């Protein structure tokens, strides 16, 4: 079981700062420390089997007035594209989505970069804004930007994706 280092803990802190009320996630070993961190803080979580399913469930929660975020991995955006474009974008649903990025300089898998490198372009092409949290950003920036991305998603009534690099060789180990 992976433990969160300071930067992944900062995502948890940032979402708590925002006032997250529900979490919908698709399993990912690299996002798991964030999921467990939110569950440990008492945030109700729901596991979806596919990314488009997560968009639908989170969108329903958002329409019911809940502050809800999605945790997933960026190679799942291929699955989620139609749900994002025809539902979340078109219906102006505020869903902050946080996805660990794959295919970067810490990658250990030979093929995953094909989808992960394309994910930001795919998202931009349907009008979804993409922010990034990198190993070069300070821990307090990860926390502040997490909270800010969630706030802007609600303010602008649209999904916003924040990609975070949990695999970089210099990302801090768990404490």
């Amino acid at each position: 079981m992976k433990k969160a280092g300071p930067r992944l803990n900062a995502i948890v802190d940032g979402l708590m700062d925002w006032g997250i009320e529900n979490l919908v996630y698709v399993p990912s070993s690299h996002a798991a420390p964030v999921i467990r961190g939110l569950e440990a803080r008492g945030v109700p979580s729901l596991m979806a089997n596919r990314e488009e399913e997560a968009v639908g469930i989170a969108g329903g929660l958002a329409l019911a007035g809940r502050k809800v975020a999605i945790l997933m991995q960026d190679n799942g955006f291929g699955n989620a594209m139609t749900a994002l474009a025809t539902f979340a974008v078109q219906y102006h649903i505020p869903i902050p989505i946080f996805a660990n990025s794959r295919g970067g300089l810490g990658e250990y898998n030979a093929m995953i970069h094909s989808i992960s490198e394309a994910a930001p372009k795919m998202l931009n092409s349907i009008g979804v804004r993409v922010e990034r949290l990198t190993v070069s950003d300070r821990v307090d920036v990860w926390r502040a930007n997490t909270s800010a991305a969630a706030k802007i998603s609600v303010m602008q009534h649209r999904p916003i994706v924040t990609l975070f690099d949990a695999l970089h060789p210099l990302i801090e180990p768990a404490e």
Partner: protein
Amino acid sequence: MKRIEALTVIDELFAGDLLVVTCGATARELASFSRRDSHLPLLDAMGLTSPVGLGVALGYPGSVGVIDGDGSLLMGFSILPTLAIYAPANLTVIVLDNEQHASADLVPSQAARIDLAAAARGLGIPVETCNDLAGLREAITSTRASGTFGMVFAKIEPGNSADIPLLLADPAVLGATFARAVGSRSAN
């Protein structure tokens, strides 16, 4: 039982509650005789109706209905185990099963050869089945009265009603209107 007849019964039974409606001819037929702020028609998000309904039901204390179709449910079939596990007691999912993709040139769906209701039962979901209007009314009423999550699988005639106008509403307006309806009911 024609789909538009089934929709009339569902609309009446959920008149004071929230209703998430699947795309295509189903949404158009319902909108042709009933437009309510508490209706959320998904204009093009096939496969997403039951996930959206689950989310709404988890965030709202009152009764929530979902009108799904066999084709739409099959497209997002992974929602069935999720419904079985989270199973909010205030949610009723009604599947209008015409054994075809009626909005896609009437292509037969896999529901013509498999038993969708049995699949749901196999996952532990309380299921009612029916094939006429009286049975539909009874199945929905008893499911809602049970105090648990449940699904109603209703066999309907194939095809679509004639001369139904397109539903050309702005999705952003539909979403905002529905969210306001949820908010006003939550406050009461």
